[in-house]
């Protein structure tokens, strides 16, 4: 995976300003959003959908959604990067849920997760990413596996249970404990920053 080049440092205020321009139908603002976050969005789509042309469609749909509903982005709740990557994730998951052959296997998802957690990227925009990767490293292996399967693999907790050959209750518990731990780790990092 290609990472971290030509990144524009864009903070939350800049995100909010960009959203304001989108609200008044400024097409150049859409181009700026694509230039800034297109690679993150495409990275997410590729992570979930194997087929590159379908991943491109997911990325296109993501920016169309931003264009149609810029008001859905709320700078108070998170970065535009996270918002767009989240939309791309959902659109990609919808696609792989409709067509199972497009899904990534458990092995490929885990390999990507392992690789991602060892990447070290130095530039301003990816700080947010470093934070979540560090938090993911802080989970137990079984918690990480369950969360990766659910979030990036589009598996329901029942499918996580079936694929990992564990009881459904255990799958629910791993997702819950994993997400609780993730939340805890992220809030510690954020407090340290303050």
């Amino acid at each position: 995976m290609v990472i971290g080049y030509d990144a524009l440092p864009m903070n939350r205020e800049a995100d909010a300003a960009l959203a304001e321009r989108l609200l008044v139908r400024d097409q150049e603002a859409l181009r700026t959003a694509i230039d800034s976050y297109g690679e993150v969005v495409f990275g997410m789509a590729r992570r979930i959908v194997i087929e590159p042309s379908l991943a491109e469609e997911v990325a296109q749909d993501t920016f169309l959604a931003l264009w149609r509903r810029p008001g859905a982005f709320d700078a108070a709740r998170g970065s535009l990067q996270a918002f767009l990557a989240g939309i791309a994730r959902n659109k990609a998951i919808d696609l792989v849920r409709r067509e199972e052959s497009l899904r990534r296997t458990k092995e490929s998802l885990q390999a990507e997760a392992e690789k991602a957690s060892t990447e070290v990227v130095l530039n301003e925009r990816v700080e947010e990413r470093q934070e979540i990767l560090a938090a993911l490293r802080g989970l137990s292996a079984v918690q990480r596996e369950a969360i990766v399967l659910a979030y990036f693999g589009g598996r329901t907790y029942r499918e996580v249970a079936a694929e990992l050959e564990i009881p459904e209750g255990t799958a629910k518990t791993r997702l819950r404990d994993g997400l609780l731990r993730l939340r805890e780790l992220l809030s510690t990092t954020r407090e340290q920053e303050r």
Partner: protein
Amino acid sequence: MKRNHEEMQELLAAYALGAVPEDEINEVRAHILSCEECMREADEFAEASASLAVAVGSERLPAGFADRVLELVQTDASAATTEPRRRRRWLPAYALAASMAVVVVLGFQVFETQREIDRQREVLSALLHQTGVEMRGTSGAVARVVPSGSGSLFAAAGLQEAPQGHTYQLWLIKEGAAPVSAGTFDVSDGLAVIETQRSIAGFDGAAVTIEQAGGSAQPTTDPILQG
């Protein structure tokens, strides 16, 4: 069968991760809306889950990507209508609560038309309203009728679609008198909302029944929601 609070609570993380199967999702949503503790927890889980989105690396875009998106935008019919600023139709406190609930309950859906957004907001604002009549059903569905202008607003979450050829009908009830119809409604995505000219003033309660399409003069079945 309505499941208990603990069972629903166990599902909140899976819900925030988008990992609750279709057949359970309405029940979880309805529970979150009716349980303050779970609403708060689901909101926290949603935040943690949302941060996972930036864990993946970037990937170089195919050449001409931005130009193709901008071309699509030119021909995109739904972009032609200028979107109004977020409307604040409700009292500020409700507006805030409702916007949080939109994120929590509908977190993984992106509503792309203003009408859809307005409808979601109406449902959620009404459900979170502290006044009016609250109704509960056997399958975890919740609904509320609240005063709205000179009439009322009814909203429900967690209902199944009515059987073919049937509709839901809302009744206002006063002890010692026949129920008064406040209109019929349909359900989509487990949510329903109707505005009615009837005021709830002077009534003691409300109920929802399933009736033949078009509605009935008086209820013909047992209420599936009552309060």
